[in-house]
């Protein structure tokens, strides 16, 4: 069913030795093998994409290659000479650097101070700021970052911080740069800028290993594509031989059925949630909207348009005022979390690791945290009932866990997202607001999440989806509101819902794409 790799193995030896060659790389944590037998070539001046579902072993592979983890089996060679890294520092010294998906910068230091953190330049025993700032400016220019070396990182928008992170990786000459989902936090125009930077790195002869969930990026960028599935290597292909659909099929190992469930059409029922003149962060962000039972209301816009802030204000998670909020017939004067939740509104944060799940806790405590009162009506915990609830929910939402004792942090992104969805659904809401429902999760889990959303809407609940992924917003929503600069600027229904209209409304004036000040 799947063609054998047309590249590398068996072919006559490549004219040049690859910068980095991995042979039979495997990693096991205790009895659980997460990666087995990966053989990989990375050549100078190529963008080599690694794709695979969450749990396929991409992160593990990255960690092995960059010295963040030690393989249980297999060998690596750089330019033909065998290497083994005990830690990330050794890998960096050898010229391999991993740029993490999360932004790991000290917000109170300047760009230059962050770049040189731990390797400050000095002159006569004093820190040589002048030289560091100059070097920083050079590297920033290389990655197309417009920030000044003396800017405080905490004052910069997220996209710029991501560039600073890449700049830090490039401070010393690198042979291999591994980018782990560098665009996960970026809005569309910022993504384009980043892709340009990756191309220019490649043209400078750097080998770029690129991990992304966005297959369109991979198609646009990669020279070669390696597919992983269930911890195994499926193969490496020259990028022109694969289109997005083929990549998705190789990742999941089966033909893709329709990703998005059929739409339900415009809902006509009376609104279940009416928000009038909600004003958040002292009026910087404001808006009115309604949600009806049986519809998916999409909220589109650039990152920084204020979508998350508006909803957090509605939930009472940040200071907000409203002329009127009506939810399920209850009128709420000033939103606060408890009132909103008991009135039937729940919110799935976009930040599932920081605000959604207790990463060190098991499945049970995570699942029942929000609905603790519903699962346990008394003061005491009803452990038997809790276990029952957990087991049935894990099954219902297809959360794949080897044992109930596993912690939430050990789950893959897709399973974490399903756990988060199950958690808020346990509170028996009538309106569900989901912020970036599928950020950083693979295609198989995506389609499952879409089906869950469809199910809950068909069951008569209302669902509000905030999404920066245009195909998702367009594919899911029965109605779309577009935000720009903290205000709703457009409402799209029916045939009007397409990517062009959303982009046009979200970005038609250029002054508000600067991103949010605080992450």
């Amino acid at each position, binding site marked *: 069913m799947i063609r054998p790799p047309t590249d590398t193995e068996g072919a006559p030896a490549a004219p040049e030795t690859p910068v980095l060659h991995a042979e039979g790389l495997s990693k096991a944590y205790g009895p659980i093998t997460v990666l087995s037998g990966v053989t990989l070539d990375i050549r100078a001046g190529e963008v080599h994409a690694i794709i695979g579902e969450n749990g396929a072993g991409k992160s593990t592979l990255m960690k092995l290659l960059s010295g963040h983890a030690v393989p249980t089996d297999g060998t690596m060679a750089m330019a033909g000479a065998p290497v083994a890294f005990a830690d990330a520092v050794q890998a960096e010294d050898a010229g391999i650097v991993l740029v993490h998906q999360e932004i790991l910068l000290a917000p109170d230091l300047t760009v230059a101070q962050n770049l040189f953190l731990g390797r400050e330049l000095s002159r006569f025993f004093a820190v040589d700021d002048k030289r560091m700032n100059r070097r920083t400016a050079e590297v920033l220019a290389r990655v197309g970052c417009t920030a000044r070396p003396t800017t405080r990182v905490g004052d910069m928008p997220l996209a710029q911080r991501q560039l600073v992170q890449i700049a830090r990786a490039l401070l010393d000459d690198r042979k291999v740069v591994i980018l782990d989902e560098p665009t996960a936090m970026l809005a569309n125009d910022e993504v384009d800028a980043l892709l340009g930077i990756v191309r220019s790195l490649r043209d400078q002869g750097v080998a770029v290993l690129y991990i992304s969930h966005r297959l369109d990026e991979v198609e646009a960028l990669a020279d070669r594509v390696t597919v992983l599935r269930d911890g195994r290597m499926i193969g490496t292909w020259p990028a022109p031989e694969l289109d997005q659909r083929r990549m998705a099929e190789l990742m999941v190992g089966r033909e893709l059925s329709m990703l998005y469930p059929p739409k339900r059409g415009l809902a006509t029922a009376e609104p279940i949630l009416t928000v009038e003149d909600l004003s958040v962060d002292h009026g910087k962000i404001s808006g009115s909207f309604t949600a009806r039972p049986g519809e998916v209301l999409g909220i589109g816009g650039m990152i920084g348009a204020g979508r998350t802030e508006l909803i957090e204000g509605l939930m009472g998670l940040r200071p907000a005022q409203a002329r009127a909020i009506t939810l399920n017939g209850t009128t709420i004067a000033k939103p606060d979390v408890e009132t909103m939740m008991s009135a039937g509104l729940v919110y799935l944060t976009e930040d599932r690791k920081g605000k959604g799940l207790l*990463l060190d806790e098991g499945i049970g405590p995570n699942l029942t945290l929000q609905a603790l009162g519903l699962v346990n009506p008394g003061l005491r915990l009803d452990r038997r009932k809790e276990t029952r609830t957990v087991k049935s929910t894990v099954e219902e939402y297809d959360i794949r866990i*080897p044992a109930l*004792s596993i912690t939430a942090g050990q789950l893959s992104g897709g399973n974490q997202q399903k756990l988060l969805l199950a958690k808020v659904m346990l509170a028996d809401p009538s309106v569900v607001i989901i912020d970036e429902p599928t950020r950083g999760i693979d295609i198989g889990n995506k389609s499952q999440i879409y089906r869950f959303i469809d199910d809950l809407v068909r069951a008569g609940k209302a669902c509000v989806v905030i999404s920066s992924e245009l195909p998702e917003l367009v594919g899911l929503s029965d109605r779309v509101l577009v935000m720009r600069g903290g205000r709703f600027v457009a409402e799209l229904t029916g045939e009007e819902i397409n990517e062009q209209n959303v982009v046009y409304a979200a970005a038609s004036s250029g002054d508000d794409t600067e991103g949010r000040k605080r992450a």
Partner: protein
Amino acid sequence: MSSAETAARPESEGFKIRWADMAPFIALAVIVLLGALINSNFMAANNLMNVITRSAFIAIIGVGATFVIATGGLDLSIGSMMAFVVGIMIMAMNALAPHLGVWALPVGALVALVVGSLCGLMNGLIVTVGRIEPFIVTLGTMGIFRALITYMTDGGSLSIDRSLRSAYRPLYFGDFLGVPYPVIITAVIALLGAFILYRMKYGRRVTAVGSNADVARFSGVHVGRVRTMAFVIQGFCVAVAAICYVPRLGAATPTTGQLWELQVITAVVIGGTLLRGGKAHIWGTVAGALILEVIANVMVLSDMVSEYLVAAVQGAIIIIAMLAHRFTSAR
């Protein structure tokens, strides 16, 4: 990390011993064994009971501290608060003694419980409503309580009325079926603490708040209320310890409870509760309190090390415990 899962079905949980959780008990057993080897008097029933009784104060306050620390807080004021509550209680009992006779004792104890809880409430409210680091807040109230007890005793000592002494004395020195009352009270407090922490919704929320306050907030947990309540529990426990403490010396002085906060925090931490919050081990705390007291006792009994160095050994213990924890939990 993200891929440590397979399609395997969730299997039912077998009984698994978690070595990290057992560590404080194993350490306690080892130290007791060493004590027995070093000095034969150590294992005398008399001596052992004495050691356990003396560890009661740290254990009782430690149960409260486990709550505060599990929510990600810290209470440095407990030692001074103990002295303050002792002072208030003695004053209340002395004032009531002429009117109520022996009944001044339970009423005074009640006053102590209320005052202790209020002190905790004050700490909690300043931390949560005022949004100030618990470290700073309780550093401040530590000074305030200490100054108040010094003021109340006028720098000397504040003794309990002679008429009450004989009735009160058994609470520390008496026993029920051979078990000293302080030990029984410790067991009751620890059982209560364990019940609240492991069997009640509030306990689940304590762990959630300490584990990640943002997650708790986004899940509709009233974080401030949970944190404040932990301080109230701490204050209540301090009052219980105060009630047990008075019959032992019969007076409050400016040095009552001095540096207890360090012993309590040591007991909690070597008991396995994470200082950054999110993991709480009530029974570990009790074991921690016992470890500290047993070490002191063994050192006094043995001639090898001067007993003036007890605090140094206890200080070394907390560092060793943390290092051991680091190495056993490292992946």
